[in-house]
């Protein structure tokens, strides 16, 4: 599987030169595809339009990875934007109120309100240890109240006894009183499905809301909904100011664009999703999964992620070769520092190394931290390109200038140069060896940040040479220091 991906990547490498930033034409090519993908997933047209416009703005001019097609990178940007719109924060149910907290279920006919009410009751009882009562206000659909009663019995929660000839508002009042008197924590009100253009029925829902003052008004919507999602969401938002959305039938094969439509139109979070007919088939909403499903371009997204990884590997390989040839200059040193930062800085890397807790303390004591790496980066950036290539040029006055330019001290500049020289010297010694071997030796010899050479009271031996095949999950060697996962070798 990875072979074909690698092949594809290689084709792309050879087909493309370096690119700096995404061009408008690249972005538009990709967004045409994305527009179709979103529409085919039933995202509503007005939502598609605003979403695309927003992403376009974000994408044009942004940096592009040299190893993917620019339009592929746009799709990755789209995916990330989708995840963000769908919900960057968790949206728990708000039931912490003075009991009983009322949850009002609303939605079109057949969207899954009753089933969801039952599932919710079970979830709140079993997971949150709440005392839950269910009440059906659905006097329209034949046997709707029986259905809820059976579901309530299965979930082992309270169910408001049915009475004849009551209006939904009357049932709601009775339910609230009963829940108060009997000390229920949560009261879930199931309502009849209604088309939003029926003013009478929407008014009825408003009345129920006014009477019961719900903490949550959940719009229950079918994941298979088409373009009407916008109309429905808007209408329920306007009529009863919904607080959240439950998307049902996500166990089906619908792409589920309604999720995006409704989320965007109402601004309300998708709180839960229904994934089956069983009572426990109610889950938290996962924006990343939903985005992948809607966009259905997982291959491309994965490809770009892979490419981003590959670039790091490539860069590491390039460095290793240069080192082996004794060509390691300040630019390479800089590149190494940056890769280190990308890996989450020193802390991130140390955290990945088992049993290095102690060392972490020593490092901290020695004043080696991420801010130091950033200062070192600043120092190199303040050098001219000539200076970076031939460090010998760095006389006292140049060092002074660099210190001033980088906001550091001459001592720091000196320390960096010394570190660099030590590394370069070592690398020459290793000259005959392969890149990988050089890397391994380097691991024990000098890490940016000054281990051990430049480090006051250096760690004896630096990082244990080979770490037996390198850091777990990072391939042989420290990331950015040329180690690379086996199997990715070209």
């Amino acid at each position, binding site marked *: 599987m990875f072979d074909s991906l690698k092949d594809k990547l290689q084709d792309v490498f050879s087909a493309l030169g370096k690119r700096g930033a995404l061009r408008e034409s690249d972005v538009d090519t990709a967004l045409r595809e994305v527009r*179709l993908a979103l*529409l*085919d*997933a*039933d995202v*509503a*047209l007005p939502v598609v339009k605003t979403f695309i416009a927003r992403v376009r703005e974000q994408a044009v001019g942004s940096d592009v990875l040299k190893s993917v097609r620019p339009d592929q990178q746009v799709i990755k940007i789209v995916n990330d934007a989708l995840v963000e719109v769908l919900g960057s924060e968790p949206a728990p149910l708000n039931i912490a109120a003075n009991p009983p907290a009322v949850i009002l279920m609303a939605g*079109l*006919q*057949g*969207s*899954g309100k009753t089933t969801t009410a039952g599932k919710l009751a079970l979830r709140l009882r079993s997971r949150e240890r709440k005392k839950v009562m269910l009440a059906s206000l659905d006097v*329209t*659909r*034949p*046997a*709707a109240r*029986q*259905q809820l*009663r*059976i*579901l309530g019995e*299965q979930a082992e929660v309270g169910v408001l006894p049915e009475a004849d000839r009551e209006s939904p508002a009357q049932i709601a009042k009775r339910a609230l009183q009963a829940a108060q008197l009997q000390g229920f924590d949560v009261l879930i009100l199931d309502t009849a499905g209604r*088309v*939003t*253009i029926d003013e009478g029925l929407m008014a009825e829902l408003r009345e129920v809301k006014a009477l019961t003052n719900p903490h949550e008004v959940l719009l229950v919507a*079918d994941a*298979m*909904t*088409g*373009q*009407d999602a916008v*109309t*429905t969401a808007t*209408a329920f938002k306007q009529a009863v100011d919904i607080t959240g959305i439950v998307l049902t*039938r996500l*166990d*089906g*094969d*619908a*792409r589920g*664009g*309604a999720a995006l439509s409704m989320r965007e139109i109402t601004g309300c979070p998708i709180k839960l999703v229904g994934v089956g*007919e069983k009572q426990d088939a109610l889950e938290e909403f996962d924006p990343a999964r939903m985005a992948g499903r809607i966009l259905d371009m997982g291959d491309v997204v994965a490809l770009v992620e892979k490419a981003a990884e590959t670039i790091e590997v490539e860069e590491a390989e390039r460095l290793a070769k240069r080192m082996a040839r004794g060509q390691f200059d300040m630019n390479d040193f800089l590149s190494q520092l940056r890769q280190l930062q990308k890996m989450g800085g020193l802390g991130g890397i140390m955290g990945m190394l088992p049993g290095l807790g102690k060392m972490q303390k020593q490092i901290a004591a020695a004043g080696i931290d991420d801010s130091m790496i950033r200062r070192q980066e600043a120092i190199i950036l303040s050098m001219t390109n000539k200076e970076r290539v031939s460090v010998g040029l760095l006389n006292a006055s140049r060092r002074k200038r660099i210190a001033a330019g980088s906001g550091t001290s001459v001592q720091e500049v000196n320390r960096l140069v010394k570190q660099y020289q030590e590394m370069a010297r070592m690398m020459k010694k290793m000259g005959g060896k392969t890149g990988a071997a050089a890397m391994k030796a380097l691991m024990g010899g000098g890490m940016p940040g000054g281990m051990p050479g430049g480090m006051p009271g250096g760690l004896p031996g630096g990082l244990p040479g080979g770490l037996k095949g390198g850091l777990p999950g990072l391939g042989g060697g420290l990331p950015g220091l040329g180690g690379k996962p086996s199997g990715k070798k070209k």
Partner: protein
Amino acid sequence: MSWLKKLTSGLSKTSARVTSSLSSLLGRSSIDASSIEEVEDALISADLGTAAAARLAERVRRHKFDGEVTAEALAGALADGITEILEPVATPLVPQPGDRPHVVLLVGVNGSGKTTTAGKLAQQWRQEGKSVMLAAGDTFRAAAIEQLQIWGERTGTEVIAGAQGGDAAALAYQALERARAQGTDVLIIDTAGRLQNRTELMDELAKIVRVIRKLDEAAPHDSVIVLDGTVGQNALSQVSAFQDIADVSGLIVTKLDGSAKGGVVIALAEKFQLPVHAVGVGEGADDLQPFEARDFANALAGVSSET
């Protein structure tokens, strides 16, 4: 309210959308690319899907208009195009007197309107003087049997039901046996809602079909998929899967009294050429109407049907 008014008033939300976007084209002497794009957008907003919308828009673009292109002329051309696609599939559901009983199997995903449609069909055929029997084939969902029984009472129709959790195929078989013995004209079998990608549930449906064919090879004479009018492009996957499993022979689209447009039937007609029998336009027993291509097309395109 007449069915047509009801359908049109239901669909008029759509047509308002389509016409309002078309009205911006008013008075232009020729159709430019952006007008065509507007037509296409309006169609996409009615759930036709991108492909069907593009085809129809292209058709309107190639249409030869006499003189100035008015919004009316454009809507008219659009309605003609839609009618042309739908006319061949608009076929009423008519029980054949020779089949005793004529077996109608209702299938579809959860909540699409199968049980309600069963009740409505019973009502219609009872009113035509036919003897009808309902079979409560949804033995899965809580209170599904009671729901159909209430429809039986409402329409004066006998309901054959077993226990909840029982074997749906056995129940269907039993109902067919009974209907044959009684010489019933039509047997309507309601089934549990199931998502088309759930193979174990689809297998169960296949079993229902297999079992009733043991009694009558021609049964079910109509295997009707009930589609929710708010559904989007997933309808294509639904029809295709149910066709494989239950030899779907036609469709009924429900909930067209709401704000949804049901435009996906156009995509379905193009892809499957299956008869569209009727539309559901409300929750009452009489809220089932034959599917009329011209009216549906006019309503969608915003052409008044009065003429």
